[in-house]
């Protein structure tokens, strides 16, 4: 708490809250300012990275087709690739600031439309797998950390670290072949090999469509959970171990509380903070999708969209997805910072 500030509006929340509130606005302004600076920098970096890529999208697009010089030049003009770099940068910044993310010359659609179309599949896949990973990872991490060295601890640590070390695309392919091909050990195919829906099923909110999508979701989700949950196990486990020796737990036990209650009511809330950071980083990165998993399972999300854009390369689409992904991370970091302040009084006092 800063001591130099006058105590204002004492009648509403007590004399202590005035300066703290004032501090909050300064804190918020500082964090938002930093987020804006980060965003401007990523605009420049995003443009420079993709512009410096040695590429000729027109020859990539027309590869293998009989295309004359005149046709190729016309395409370059249409795509704005014949303009000088500085002019393209100014156009890019101007368009971005007005919410126009450009036009994909591979998909013949505005980039913002493409991103909006792919947002839901990505959020569904990443959201489901992140939630399951958080729940499973923390559930295991809490119990493993509470009794370090136990069979559960050893098992959970070994399994989660082994899965964490496995390349995602490799695990995805293995699960695909085992559960999606019907060619392993006589086991029939029980999940689809790819895509998000079976052709011919009704769309919208029809129950058959929902179950069909859920059916397609199982393998990609399982792959992601297997890889992601380990980080929650390890973070939660080490946080719980740190808390175990604290005197307040002894006090709780002295009150006669059961071991489970001591863990749940006292140790876990204090051990949660490091996980909050990871959760928000994960949520920020979530919007980018998981490129490898989306590509392995042909899941029509944003990660897969970025993958296809890289092949041409579809510069405006790449720039657009880069901006959206980075902005999501910046916003989530900002939220995490603010939440940290709310969760941990020590941050407020700094």
């Amino acid at each position, binding site marked *: 708490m800063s001591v130099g500030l006058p105590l204002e509006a004492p009648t509403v929340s007590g004399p202590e809250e005035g300066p703290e509130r004032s501090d909050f606005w300064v804190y918020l302004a500082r964090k938002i300012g930093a987020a804006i600076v980060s965003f401007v920098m990523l605009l420049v970096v995003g443009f420079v990275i993709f512009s410096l890529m040695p590429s000729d999208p027109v020859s990539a697009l027309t590869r293998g087709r009989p295309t004359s010089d005149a046709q190729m030049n016309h395409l370059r003009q249409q795509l704005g690739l014949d303009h000088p770099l500085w002019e393209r940068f100014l156009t890019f910044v101007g368009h971005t600031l007005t919410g126009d993310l450009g036009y994909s010359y591979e998909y*013949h659609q505005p980039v913002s439309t493409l991103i909006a179309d792919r947002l839901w599949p990505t959020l569904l896949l990443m959201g489901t797998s992140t939630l399951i990973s958080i729940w499973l990872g923390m559930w295991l991490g809490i119990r493993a950390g509470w009794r370090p060295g136990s069979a559960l601890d050893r098992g959970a640590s070994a399994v989660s670290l082994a899965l964490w070390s496995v390349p995602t695309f490799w695990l995805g392919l293995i699960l695909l072949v085992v559960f999606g091909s019907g*060619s392993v050990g006589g086991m029939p195919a*029980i999940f689809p090999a790819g895509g998000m829906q079976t052709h011919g099923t009704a769309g919208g909110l029809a129950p058959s469509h929902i179950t069909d999508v859920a059916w397609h979701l199982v393998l990609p989700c399982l792959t992601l959970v297997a890889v992601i949950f380990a980080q929650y196990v390890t973070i939660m486990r080490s946080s719980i171990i740190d808390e175990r020796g604290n005197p307040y737990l002894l006090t709780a036990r002295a009150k006669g509380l059961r071991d489970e209650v001591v863990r749940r009511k006292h140790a876990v809330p204090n051990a949660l903070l490091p996980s909050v950071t990871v959760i928000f980083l994960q949520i920020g990165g979530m919007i980018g999708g998981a490129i490898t998993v989306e590509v392995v399972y042909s899941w029509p999300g944003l990660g897969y969209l970025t993958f296809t854009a890289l092949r041409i390369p579809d510069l405006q689409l790449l720039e657009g997805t880069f901006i959206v992904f980075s902005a999501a991370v910046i916003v989530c970091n900002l939220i995490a910072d603010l939440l940290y302040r709310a969760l941990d009084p020590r941050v407020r006092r700094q």
Partner: protein
Amino acid sequence: MTLNEGPTRGLRRRRSVAALAAAALAAAAMMAGQLAGTSAQAADPTTLTVQADTQMTTFNPFLSYYDGELNILGAIYPTLTMLDDTGTPEKYLADSWTTSSDQLTWTFKIHPGLKWSDGEPLTAADAAWTFNLIMHNATAATSNGSLVANFKSVTAPDATTLVIKTKQPQANMLYLSVPVSGIPIVPEHIWKSHVSGLKNYRNMDFPVVGYGPFVLTGFKTNQFAEMTANKDFFLGAPHYDKVVTNYYSNSDAAAAALTSGELDQIGGLTPAQFNAMSSKSNVMTYQTQSSGWTAIEINPGAKTRTGKPLGTGNPILSDIRVRQAIALGVNRPELVKKVLDGNGIVGAGYLPPGYPQFFWKPSPSQSLDYDPARAKQLLDQAGYKMGSNGVRVAPDGKPLEFRLGIHSDDATDAAIAPYLKEWMTAIGIKLTVNAMSFDQLNNDLAKGDWDILMDGWSTGPDPTYLLSIQTCGTLPEDNGSNGNTDAFFCNKKYDRLYAQQQTQFDAQARAATIAKMQSILYAGNADLILFYKNGLDALRTDQVSDYLQGAKQSDGFYPLQHGFASWWKAQPAAGAASASEKASEQSSNAFKWIGLGVLVVLVIGGVVVLLRRRTAAERE
């Protein structure tokens, strides 16, 4: 907080675990029920489900480039002619055609009485309008502009007559409007309102108005396209009610989809996938002739159109004897064996075996087959002495060290490179392998900044374009722009023959001229064709029959296959499961296995709970 709180919550939790397990079982049952229900409700049309060759982003035929889109467009829009099993043009919209004595005017008689899928008449005026749009609108020329570059005028004097006048005689006229690789004809009454916004129009107002064996009725980006049969197709109704092309972003997923029964046909398998499928009783694996080649190109001395040297290519390679020695030093049969697992043909001529009418092989006396001893002898005779470090040096003291550019994203290139390096070392040439992106490699190529590069091309049934990229006219201008050359090859005799074949209306005479051109290219050794990679495809014989077009050839390979003919002529196999039966079976499997999984989890959970109960007192 009370002391009783713990046990109470614990009980509640166990209840909630039980409720969760019940919910999971119910969800699994519901999922299986819904999936089975979906299939039971279906009207059960026969559906052929195949893999899309590429992703699909637009069905605007004026803008399309991807094979996945072109295959669809070939099935939903008509063309003047189509190709038979041997790749020879035959009638489609045009019942017949004639040429004027000066070979500059073509008159096509269009089949009368046809109607677009919306009931409007399909006439020669639609064809004339389509060609004129491509000729006069730069955006409409995006995909197929080069095909009408020699057109002077196109008119439709009446509903069944189409007249095309050309600036120069054009021998490949009958290949210009064929399904997939040629110009599709679109309905004027639909498209005239889209001309102003052609650049952004994706043609996805379903059902898409067209004419062909199928009508495009649905699409999901990067997932699938659905076509419904046109049972009134005047050349014969398709046997399937629907054709669906599914897109998979990786070939392992597509292969899994074939074995699981989601797909009926798949192409582009890797040798490993192909071999793995060969043992399955309900899958037929087959190889198709190649429509392209893999080669190395050797910089013969990059120059502009006016003969100005260009780039940083090693000048030693402009010596034809060095290029011949390299050709003699490459063991092409070994590459086919090791890199392709034997699934290909040893390379030689410039045009691939998929088009037998143009396939050419060098005579034994001309052939530069693997002969490292002869390669060394040739280099010795040319004055390239072996250096102390095993690398030969030119008479001016410069070593025979060359860069080999390969595509960093191409596994075949990566597999070939070590062999080339080893074989060149054996004859005293050092190669340094540079893996580059496709774009970087192309940029270096255009600027002449290369020594040896991996190269690959495929062609449609008319080879004019592939032949054109070896003409002097495709060299860049002095400022480095507007070049479209493949390997900076330039030979006046070749150019004369190129011009000649364009005017030869007699197919055999044209093929003979093209053979001479290939002989010149072979002798030039700027493009060293390593092999022709066979198409490795597979088919579910328990699901589909009559998919393959043309007879198996003496070498065991099938002719090139085209989606247009295969989809149109394929039939459901006797006893084939319908789409609903397949879905029902898979959902039943899913139910069994999910149920089993949930049961296992419940048993393990129960054991854990029991154990924990027993040891609860100790833990307290």
